[in-house]
């Protein structure tokens, strides 16, 4: 008999129960089951965290797109330097701006690449949160979107960036757009088929009448690009080929050096000649009561104003006193645009006094002043397109759309100079982040 046999016999001979081993086994089995449940729960929780990170990464990618659009909508570009808003100059391989741009947002980050063309801006943006990435591609189109130039009146004939206000009995017979509110006072009338207001804005107050409901959105106006018109212009025609009647051509009324023109009451000046194109440049143009600027029938005339900085801080570049007019001399096709660049640093205003008139409805006329407040006082009237920083239409004053304003193209402004890029198409790229910055849209 060996020692092992003796031990075995001793063990089998014992009368102790199996309670403890049984309990231990049951406990181990229960623990195993509970562990499986916990593992499943942890797995589900991990999935939730992953979902959260995915959504956050996606939001970060969209933030990158918005950042790119903001830059391109705020920073002007020029031909051959379309990458300026993202810190480059000319596009590189594949038309992509070589410099990718990165930023931080909340607990994630984004990187984006842009490919600007004449009318479109392609943005590929990658968002990353805790190692989870999402990539999106957005093709934004210029709001004006033409190769030759921009058309600020393509959506609405009356655009007031900060707001449009109609006092009692005032009226606008046109489609309108603003980033602010449209104020309709008692007995005012907005005769429209489209009225764009800013996000969260509307008719406020709304005690007047409107024939259309407000649509929330965003509108932008490219700045005036005067080019070299302040030096190369048609000003030399004034008092020579362009006759001034009712007053002398002394420097009291017309100073070619300071570019200040004033027409006294009853005086008139006729600009341009039939079939020609003329660019005039002024620092200040004052039409006193019942004075007129006539535009020769068949002429295409652009009246530019200098910025306050160019014109001795002039804050009221265009003043039309009561009964004054800018009007065509006949029924021939006449095309007139008044372009006031204004300034972000200095407030500028333009006002039309009682009974003043800007043009005839059967001709092409626009007043384009994206950084200038425009005020129409009692019984004054504009017929054509009006774009301004803000528009105030006072008692009994009115604006009427012309059929031709929508086709007006802002001169010297190729579309890639413009602002107003809005997303056109959105793609969530399926593939992983490409390694080549020359083709960040690979797999989209």
């Amino acid at each position, binding site marked *: 008999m060996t020692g092992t046999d003796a031990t075995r016999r001793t063990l089998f001979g014992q009368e102790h129960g199996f*309670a403890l081993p049984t309990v231990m086994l049951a406990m181990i089995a*229960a623990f195993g089951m509970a562990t499986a*449940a916990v593992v499943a729960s942890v797995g589900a929780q991990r999935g939730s965290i992953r979902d959260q990170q995915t959504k956050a990464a996606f939001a970060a990618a969209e933030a990158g797109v918005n950042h790119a659009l903001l830059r391109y909508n705020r920073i002007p570009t020029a031909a051959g330097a379309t990458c300026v808003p993202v810190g480059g100059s000319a596009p590189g391989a594949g038309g992509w701006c070589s410099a990718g741009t990165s930023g931080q947002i909340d607990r994630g980050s984004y990187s984006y690449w842009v490919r600007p063309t004449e009318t479109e801006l392609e943005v590929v943006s990658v968002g990353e949160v805790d190692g989870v990435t999402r990539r999106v591609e957005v093709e934004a189109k210029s709001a004006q979107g033409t190769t030759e130039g921009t058309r600020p009146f393509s959506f609405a004939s009356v655009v007031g960036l900060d707001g449009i206000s109609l006092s009692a009995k005032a009226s606008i017979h046109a489609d309108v757009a603003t980033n602010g509110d449209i104020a309709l006072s008692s007995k005012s009338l907005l005769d429209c088929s489209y009225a764009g207001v800013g996000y969260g804005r509307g008719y406020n107050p709304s005690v007047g009448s409107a024939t259309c409901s407000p649509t929330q959105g965003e509108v932008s106006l490219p700045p005036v690009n005067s080019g070299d018109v302040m030096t190369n212009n048609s000003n030399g025609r004034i008092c020579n080929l362009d006759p001034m009647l009712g007053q002398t051509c002394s420097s009291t009324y017309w100073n070619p050096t300071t570019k200040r023109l004033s027409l006294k009451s009853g005086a008139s000046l006729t600009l341009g000649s039939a079939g020609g194109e003329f660019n005039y440049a002024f620092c200040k143009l004052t039409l006193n009561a019942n004075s007129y600027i006539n535009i020769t029938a068949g002429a295409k005339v652009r009246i530019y104003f200098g910025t306050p900085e160019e014109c001795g801080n002039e804050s009221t570049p265009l003043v039309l006193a009561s009964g004054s007019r800018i009007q065509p001399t006949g029924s021939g096709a006449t095309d007139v645009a008044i372009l006031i660049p204004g300034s972000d640093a200095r407030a500028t205003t333009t006002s039309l006094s009682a009974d003043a008139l800007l043009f005839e409805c059967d001709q092409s006329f626009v007043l384009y002043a994206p950084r200038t407040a425009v005020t129409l006082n009692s019984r004054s009237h504009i017929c054509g397109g009006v774009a301004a920083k803000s528009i105030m239409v006072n008692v009994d004053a009115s604006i009427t759309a012309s059929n031709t304003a929508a086709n007006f193209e802002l001169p010297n402004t190729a579309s890639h100079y413009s602002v107003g890029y809005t997303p056109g198409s959105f*793609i*969530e790229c399926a593939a992983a982040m490409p390694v080549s910055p020359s083709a960040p849209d690979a797999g989209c």
Partner: protein
Amino acid sequence: MLCALQWIRRRLSDERGFTFPELIVATMMGMLAIAGAMMILQIAVRAQPQALERSGQIQQARALIETVSRELRQGASIQGASTTGLTIDTYVNRNTCGGTGTGPSILCRVTYACTAASCTRTESSVSGGAGRTTELARGLLAPSIFSYCIEQAGAPSCGLSAATNPSYVGIRLAYSNPDGGESVTFDDGVALRNHTSEAPL
């Protein structure tokens, strides 16, 4: 040391047993412990399939919402909208609509249809024709999973059961609890990034 070895040897060679009361008490304690352990084991065994099923439902819902959200996000126009179904023209990464090969994003027509039994996804060309149908989910508490938002007079109107080319789609998936308890519900919603105001074809 020697003393300890002697004590152990004496204990091992000791032939004295337990007293009867000791046995009774020990048996009862052992029975109680076993009963407790068995109850825990039984509960765990019973709960395990339900936990697995619930986990599967969560995974299934997550995948469905991810798929639908992604395609809605890239959607251009909704051709048909009800609480149990949705037809949308959207971008998918395919060589051909309804095919199986992946490629750059192309515009296809995707139809989601839910019944009491399952939810399916059918991908076809925007010009119509036969498509390829796959099953996305089973065991939903109710087949009404979609709701819609439209803009009226500049203000959104949401929670609609039907709409013409809405720009926002809400998704709600509810799964019944296998144990008869509270159901699990997933809520999400997506705005169409490529939404066009064109009327459905």
